[in-house]
């Protein structure tokens, strides 16, 4: 590449591919383009230990879908070297810029050759991100890789993005598209043998995260309802800088989407106490991977109540007090009462509707009570009784009024029947009097 013809040739070669590789799914043309392909796709040349250097037909087909290939990049653009020479020595010369990966630990910098270079990335994207490699080294994967660059079980770029068929992140078929991402992570993180003996921050890594997450409400929303805003692994753990959120940053992770609740929690004494005793914020009550849709049963001191896990009599775990227990009971009662009243109002409105009475206005007003209930449920996370009671009282008032309206309508229905029954009285009276009058008249026919 140092010689002038070499440079000119390289430049021409660089300009030709984009025009030639216009159609999708076309197997890349061989020979003229890149001499690398000639040797590296020849099945007779590679065997045994060097088999991994063979680029199979399948991989060539995948390359056609590769986002780099589609943008015109070829073998030498990533691997370096001289694509014009058949001579191994020249093709793979270090002077020709050939970059070899000797260990898995070399992969991030290999990709980073372009992806961490702003000048290069700017050619393809006006505002590129070039911090992925730096981020990677801060991640759990990166830290493990630094310790042992030969470790083939630690994830690097290729583990998640693939190598010869890299699709764009927003491509539906990409292994890192939101609906596939968890599976990709699970390839290693659900593999017991791979996770064996590994730890982060002194805690052993488990291998049930994917299994748990699949049961969660987030997974349900993402995979069944198709709500792409529902979180998967990277939304809480990060992408390239993936780490389990620290005890004090769990609430922040959740609070990215659950803003209101996060703000409420951040202002409480509980939050700081949790940090002191190293309890993982939101996950303490809501779990971290198998997060379910919260129910009212979670609040309080009874069976499923999470408060009771710590605030128990005779169990000074974490120094938990009992005054909180009473507040929890009251909150739960308040929620239950409002919920019950709303349900009753809904029932009576339905009954009234079935009887043919108009119920649209009460239904609309009742929604305000439902909104209050939702509001109260988030206010639980402020762990303060008074604001919650205020909201609950308002909601209860609305629900009670609408319930009464519904009962009124039902009553009106019955009132109508009574009124109609009464109207039969003058009718029967007329009939009776008419008969009397007819009888008074002379009998016809004589």
């Amino acid at each position, binding site marked *: 590449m140092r010689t002038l013809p070499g440079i000119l040739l390289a430049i021409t070669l660089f300009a030709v591919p984009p025009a030639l590789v216009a159609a999708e799914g076309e197997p890349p043309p061989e020979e003229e383009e890149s001499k690398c392909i000639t040797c590296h796709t020849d099945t007779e040349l590679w065997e045994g230990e060097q088999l991994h250097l063979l680029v199979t037909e399948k991989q060539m087909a995948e390359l056609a879908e590769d986002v780099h290939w589609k943008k015109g990049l070829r073998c030498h653009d990533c691997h370096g070297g001289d694509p014009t020479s058949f001579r191994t020595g020249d093709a793979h010369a270090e002077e020709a810029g050939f970059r070899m990966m000797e260990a898995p630990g070399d992969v991030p910098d290999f990709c980073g050759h372009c992806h961490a270079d702003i000048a290069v990335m700017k050619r393809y994207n006006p505002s590129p991100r070039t911090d992925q490699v730096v981020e990677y080294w801060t991640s759990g994967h990166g830290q493990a890789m630094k310790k042992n660059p030969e470790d083939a079980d630690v994830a690097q770029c290729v583990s998640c993005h693939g190598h010869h068929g890299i699709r764009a992140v927003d491509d539906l078929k990409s292994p890192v598209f939101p609906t596939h991402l968890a599976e990709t992570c699970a390839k290693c993180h659900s593999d017991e043998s791979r996770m064996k003996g590994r730890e982060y921050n002194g805690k052993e890594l488990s291998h049930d995260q994917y299994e748990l997450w699949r049961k969660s409400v987030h997974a349900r929303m993402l995979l069944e309802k198709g709500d792409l805003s529902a979180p998967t692994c990277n939304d809480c753990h990060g992408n390239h800088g993936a780490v389990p959120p620290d005890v004090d940053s769990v609430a922040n992770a959740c609070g990215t989407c659950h803003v209101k609740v996060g703000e409420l929690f951040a202002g409480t004494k509980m939050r700081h106490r949790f940090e002191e005793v190293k309890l993982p914020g939101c996950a303490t009550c809501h779990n971290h991977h198998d997060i379910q849709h919260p129910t009212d049963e979670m609040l309080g001191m009874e069976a499923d109540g999470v408060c009771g896990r710590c605030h128990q009599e005779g169990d000074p775990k974490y120094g938990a007090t009992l005054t909180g227990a009473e507040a929890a009971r009251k909150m739960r009662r308040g929620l239950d009462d409002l919920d019950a009243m709303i349900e009753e109002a809904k029932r009576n409105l339905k009954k009234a509707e079935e009887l043919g009475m*108009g119920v649209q206005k009460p239904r609309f007003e009742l929604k305000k009570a439902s909104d209050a209930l939702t509001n109260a449920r988030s206010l639980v996370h402020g762990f303060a009784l008074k604001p919650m009671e205020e909201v609950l009282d308002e909601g209860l008032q609305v629900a009670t009024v609408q319930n009464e309206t519904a009962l009124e309508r039902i009553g009106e229905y019955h009132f109508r029947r009574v009124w109609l029954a009464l109207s039969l009285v003058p*009718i029967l009276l007329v009939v009776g009097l008419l008969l009397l009058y007819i009888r*008074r008249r002379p009998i016809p026919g004589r």
Partner: protein
Amino acid sequence: MGDEPESPERRTWLLGALSGAVGTTLAAIVYPIVSFLWPRESTESGAMNVVAPFKANQLPDSGGHWPPPFDFGGKPCLVIKTPGGEIRAFNAVCTHTDCTVQFQPDKGQFLCACHNGIYDLNGFNVSGPPPRPLETYKVDFRPTGTPGEEEIIVSRT
């Protein structure tokens, strides 16, 4: 006709009672019919257009409060005024999980507090989980004699 001797009072009594009873039944028939004919209050159900329960100069009102969503055919309708002075109406139900959005005049956006969804003043979902924009309604005005105090009429597009 009558060759039967009948005291006049008896016949009058009977005829009188009969007329009274017939009159009552006729009234019982006519009253519902007249009530039926009398125009009803503006329809709530299946409404194609509804007059907002506030006037054009109450956005916001003198206390700086913006009106809450009102009932538009069963759906909550939020009416706002853009910084440019244009009055717009939207269906306030968030397209993500059906929470009610709130208008944030100082930020010039709608916020859904449930999962932090944000819509701009055109109703477009610009941030957060909402998959679709807010449903937009058409706004018309009816003068009331006092300029600035027009009635706001919201209808489906």
